[in-house]
């Protein structure tokens, strides 16, 4: 699997927020095998060192970072944040979020497409956090996105895949575009279901970070993602309405009256 020409062996992208401690975060990343972690930006006062120590910590993990534009509500905010992230993290990758609604954290897909175009034209490699809408996906690709990240469900909601039909249709319409289910997953079976649909990867944060044992949950998600991918590649059986006997009936003894 590759994103913008970067080959990756793990299909799990992990967020770095909300863990009980940096040590548990580091163990969760290591145990999950994730090679890409998401990071963000925040205001820092002159006397503070929080951002500086987090940066050293992340660099020490030896993973690739995918900065986000979390909290941005307008195209300008997202574009400025992306520029700051590119300089700070020294990467053209940006997880582009332009949020419209604070209750659902639903993407503003109009602003998203506009910001994606501005950033792609400026050399960014954009990972748009979007919905499963096919027309929006098409516009994002037109704008220069080479990866799409549709939501499973609202961020942090742990609801799983809200619109299986929509996600399946998106996969079918864009067979060549790397697709990542981003957000809304709660348990490993949700991730496995995404992979069984043929999605290329899964991006998680809260489901791992706020589990009772984040390190064990990171491992469980990694295994589920691997299982789901193997299942997809093995071409699963289509569901049927009626039973089909698994034991052969040919040659069955005639024992009736």
């Amino acid at each position, binding site marked *: 699997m590759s994103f913008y020409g970067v080959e990756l062996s793990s299909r799990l992208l992990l967020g770095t927020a909300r863990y009980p401690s940096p040590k548990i975060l580091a163990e969760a990343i290591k145990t999950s095998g994730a090679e890409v972690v*998401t990071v963000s930006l925040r205001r*820092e006062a002159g006397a503070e060192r929080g951002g500086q120590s987090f940066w050293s910590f992340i660099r020490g993990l030896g993973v690739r970072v995918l900065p986000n534009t979390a909290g941005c509500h307008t195209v300008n905010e997202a574009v400025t944040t992306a520029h700051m992230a590119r300089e700070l993290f020294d990467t053209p990758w940006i997880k582009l979020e332009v949020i419209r609604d604070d209750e659902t954290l639903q993407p503003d897909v109009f602003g998203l497409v506009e910001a994606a175009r501005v950033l792609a034209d400026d050399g960014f490699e954009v990972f748009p956090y979007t919905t499963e809408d096919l027309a929006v996906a098409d516009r994002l690709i037109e704008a220069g996105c080479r990866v799409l990240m549709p939501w499973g469900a609202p961020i942090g909601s742990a609801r799983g895949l809200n619109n299986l039909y929509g996600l399946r249709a998106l996969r079918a319409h864009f067979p060549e575009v790397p697709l990542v289910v981003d957000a809304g997953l709660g348990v490993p079976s949700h991730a496995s279901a995404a992979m069984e649909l043929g999605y290329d990867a899964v991006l998680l944060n809260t489901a791992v970070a706020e589990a009772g044992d984040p390190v064990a949950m990171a491992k469980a998600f990694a295994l589920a993602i691997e299982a789901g991918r193997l299942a997809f590649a093995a071409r699963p059986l289509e569901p049927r309405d009626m039973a089909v006997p698994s034991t052969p009936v040919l040659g069955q003894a005639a024992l009736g009256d």
Partner: protein
Amino acid sequence: MRILVNGDQHDVKLRTLALALEELGYRDKKIATAVNGRFVAAAQRPDTPLSDGDRVEVVAPMQGG
């Protein structure tokens, strides 16, 4: 000169972004900056003048999802 830095008012004596940041304790820190909503690259900070009332944003790496 009074400017807003991350939403708080600060009085600074020096009139470029680079010098103001130094005055405010950001020297050698891993930060990125914007003035009045526009990104200012590190290399441009010495040539970026500040005026009374400018809004400066200074951000650093943090955890994210």
